């Protein structure tokens, strides 16, 4: 019987989003591709979108079209944070990362994925989900999906079934 693994819910920090759009073969891009194949749920926030758009406008114009394309692929976007949510979160983590961490908490993810090691270290003890780098997430994803048939086996099986029709 075909295994249907649980879909991980992953909140992407802005650095991971832009890095994934910037380089098609890295771990960040792998996560975005998994989302496009409906194998993970990507969650972002209006704050992430604002940061990404500002960065693209200012420094990375070649990513403009691909960012628009990603946003059109309908990732889950949580509601804008309220001042009270930011104030409450600031009691836990006093940093400019507070709005992103608050948004991540609000989105109830399985993982927050970031490329910023300082943010990872600062925030990990404050939340009840894992904060990982894209590379570490991909390792976990692959381990959890080892029980599933390999794509090669699945392709052979599907071809055989097609031949028998």
């Amino acid at each position, binding site marked *: 019987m075909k295994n249907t693994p649980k879909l991980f819910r992953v909140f992407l920090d*802005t*650095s991971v989003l*832009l*890095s994934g759009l*910037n*380089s*098609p*073969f*890295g*771990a960040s*891009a*792998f996560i975005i*591709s*998994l989302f496009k*194949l409906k*194998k993970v749920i990507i969650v972002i926030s209006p*704050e992430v979108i*604002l*940061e990404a758009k*500002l*960065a693209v406008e*200012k*420094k*990375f114009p*070649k*990513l403009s079209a691909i960012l628009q394309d990603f946003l059109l692929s309908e990732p889950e976007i949580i509601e804008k944070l309220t*001042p009270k949510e*930011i*104030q409450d979160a*600031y009691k836990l983590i006093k940093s*400019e*990362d*507070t*709005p*992103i961490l608050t948004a991540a908490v609000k989105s109830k993810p399985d993982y927050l994925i970031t*490329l*910023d090691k300082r943010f990872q270290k600062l925030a990990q003890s404050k939340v009840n989900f894992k904060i990982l780098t894209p590379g570490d997430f*991909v390792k976990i994803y692959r381990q959890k999906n080892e029980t599933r048939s390999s*794509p*090669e086996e*699945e*392709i052979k099986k*599907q*071809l055989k*079934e*097609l031949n028998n*029709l």
Partner: protein
Amino acid sequence: MNSRNNTILEKMSELEKELQFLKLRVFLDLPKKQKEKYKVYEERNIINEIKKIRKKLWDEKYSKIV
């Protein structure tokens, strides 16, 4: 459309998904040097720019709330 055609389309859709998944795995396992050829910008620059923007937004917008 008869049921045989439906089954064929379903199988083809499954095949497409599996081929995409295989492609992803192959991409991910490419040597680092080969992967870097396809980067548009340096990752370090992206991380640093996001840090700058985050700090600026904090100073101009969020710090006034807390």
